């Protein structure tokens, strides 16, 4: 707890940054103790967006949980769904078909692009360049159109389900993605010209909010935040999932540990995501099943249903009660746009999860914020918040 400074005893001033504040990216509240414009102490106050999602998941059937996971980190919803599905699939021992895996990789990487675009726009706007925001959102709209084409929804797609993808993509999906991928490098070049090369932007970000390599590891940071501190740690390379080991991509790492390094990491990551998308797009040209034929996941053949009562009962059980998952515990992590997103799931053999615990990257990364901003100026606080790219839905859940 913070001691309220006595107005007569010292010259410190306590300022509340947020929860309704344009640059805290949601409802984060920071209690800042200021000495003039210098931050003496910063205390994040979270929980304004807490909706008890982990508890709600225990009340939903295994397959229905996907609609909740995508609402946690709403900017990286595909990735959230993917992590959950992978965890349950691991517990059930389900093999996901090749095409479904490629679709998952393509859509998750596109989602990483949208997430980074939102980050780029808002980060630049926090530092004062407001035009970047509109350019980023214009481009993001195109990716959301792609999501709409694949799943019918733009933000909370719930497209990945346990065992694969909900449906195969429509025929106009691949040309839409190809169009977007063709024009994206041009856009990224413009973006770099507008913000990256700007001297004021560089002066605002270089040497601000430094986290050393050791500190970054000790804090348990992950994602672009730790890669900006010179640690080569990416779940896609360290513990590959969904066939990421078969893709050719680079993990950008910068040594500065400051806001500028984290900025460069994310900008380079957009390029790498673009490369992965291109490779996935090539693979998707071959047709194939998108849902596993595991008996618990695939609905029975309708002709067989009409002939055999046991098949009928099986269909009825899957459709009404849902399937059960073997007793056990599992941890599966993925590289979300913000870092290591982990799901720890306990099943007691029923058709609902016993417990789902989420290791949210934003939550862990935010814990390092006080150390990053103390001693800096108040203007640096918004730059640092932008650079760790938090999503409050991810933190509070």
């Amino acid at each position, binding site marked *: 707890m913070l001691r309220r400074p006595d107005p007569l005893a010292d010259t410190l001033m306590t300022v509340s940054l947020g929860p309704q504040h*344009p640059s805290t990216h949601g409802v984060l509240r920071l209690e800042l103790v200021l000495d003039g414009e210098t931050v003496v102490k910063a205390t994040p106050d979270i929980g304004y967006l807490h909706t008890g999602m982990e508890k709600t998941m225990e009340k939903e059937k295994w397959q229905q949980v996907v609609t909740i996971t995508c609402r946690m980190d709403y900017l990286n919803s595909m990735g959230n769904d993917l992590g959950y599905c992978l965890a349950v699939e691991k517990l059930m021992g389900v093999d996901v078909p090749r095409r479904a895996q490629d679709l998952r990789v393509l859509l998750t990487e596109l989602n990483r692009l949208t997430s980074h675009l939102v980050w780029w726009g808002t980060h630049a706007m926090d530092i*004062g360049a407001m*035009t970047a925001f509109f350019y980023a959102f214009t481009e993001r709209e195109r990716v959301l159109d792609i999501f709409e084409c694949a799943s019918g929804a733009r933000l909370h797609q719930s497209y990945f389900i346990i065992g694969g993808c909900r449906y195969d993509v429509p025929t106009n999906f691949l040309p839409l993605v190809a169009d977007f991928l063709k024009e994206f490098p041009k856009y990224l070049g413009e973006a770099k010209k*507008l913000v990256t090369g700007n001297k004021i*932007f560089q002066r605002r970000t270089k040497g601000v909010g430094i986290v050393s390599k050791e500190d970054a590891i000790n804090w348990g940071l992950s994602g672009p935040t730790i890669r900006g501190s010179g640690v080569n740690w990416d779940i896609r390379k360290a513990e590959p999932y969904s066939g990421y080991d078969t893709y050719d991509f680079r993990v950008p790492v910068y040594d500065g540990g400051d806001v500028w390094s984290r900025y460069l990491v994310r900008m380079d990551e957009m390029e790498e995501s673009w490369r992965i998308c291109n490779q996935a797009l090539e693979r998707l040209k071959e047709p194939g099943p998108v849902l596993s034929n595991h008996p618990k996941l695939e609905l029975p053949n309708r002709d067989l249903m009409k002939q055999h009562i046991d098949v009928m009962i099986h269909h009825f059980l899957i459709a009404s009660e849902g399937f059960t998952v073997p007793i056990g515990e599992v941890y599966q992590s993925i590289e979300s746009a913000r870092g290591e997103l982990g799901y720890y799931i306990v099943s007691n053999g029923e058709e609902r999860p016993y417990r789902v615990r989420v290791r949210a990257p934003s939550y862990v990364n935010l814990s390092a914020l006080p150390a990053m901003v103390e001693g800096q100026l108040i203007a640096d606080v918004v730059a640092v918040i932008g650079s760790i790219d938090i999503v409050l839905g991810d933190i509070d859940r």
Partner: protein
Amino acid sequence: MSSLFESIDYHYILESLIKILIVFVIGLLSPVSMNWIERRTLAFMQNRLGPNRVGPFGLFQSIADGIKFLFKEDIIPLAVNKWLYIFAPVVAVIPAFMVGIVYPIGPEVYLPFIGPTTLYVTNFNIGLLYVLAMTSLGVYGMVLGGWASNSKYSLLGGLRSSAQMISYELALSLSLIAVVIHAGTLDLVKIVEGQAGWGGFKWNILALFPAGIIAFMIYLISAIAETNRIPFDLPEAETELVAGFHTEYSSSLKFAMFFMAEYVNMLTVSILATVLFLGGWNGPFVGQYPLLGPLYFFLKVFFFMFLYIWLRGTLPRFRYDQLMNFGWKFLLPAALFNILLSAVIGIFVY
């Protein structure tokens, strides 16, 4: 007694009053029109449309906003220092408008029914000093507003604005000395008249080369800081201090006064840049057709106003310490050096 009344030049008083009214209306309309231009231009720079619903092309949007300001509930928060809180916007807006009387809009023209008349309200031999004095008063509005609001964000914003405006006003005033050295007068009209002819090569931006152009750059940078625009909009950095000094001034008429003061100040520094560096009303054929003068004048002023919008659409914001460093460690020494340079060039070359 009768001689006293006879000695009053009623014609002059009436003429001045009409001109004051015109300048006042220009001052009142400039925020309205500039706001619309700014919002539309910025919108086109940012891939969007901007206000386009009220009136043709959204032209009446700002007027609608103004009406909204008038009819909104006027909230005075409980904790504020009431009289200073009300007084601050007035302090900000009145000096901004007072500068208007020396705007040298055009040369002496012959108007039908009226006869020869000057296109400025008045003119005195220390016009430039008067403008600088009045624009410096505006900072009191921000400081008082920030302090009287009794809010931490407002206080920080007010402190920032006072520090920023004082620092940059030094560089701004010092940069003008190069022009004064060259023109040998503080009279705005004489400065403009001195720049006539030679197809623009007598504009002060080229005077005492290269001192004139250095002075122009310093003036331009300081002027942006002086009017609190991006990249120097720290007093109202919305991502840091909510709305800076006017956080507690909801959106009533008092906020509108701050808003108007900002835009009129923008107009003033643009006009000063035009008058001092870009030849004021001078341009092709002004000698034959003096009525072209105001046109050239407003085109040049508009160029600076557009520059403000352009910068706003492009640049991020400086940090407080960087701003101070830049002002004190770079701009001020540069301005001082420039005085020396222009003096040396003025003595030895001309």
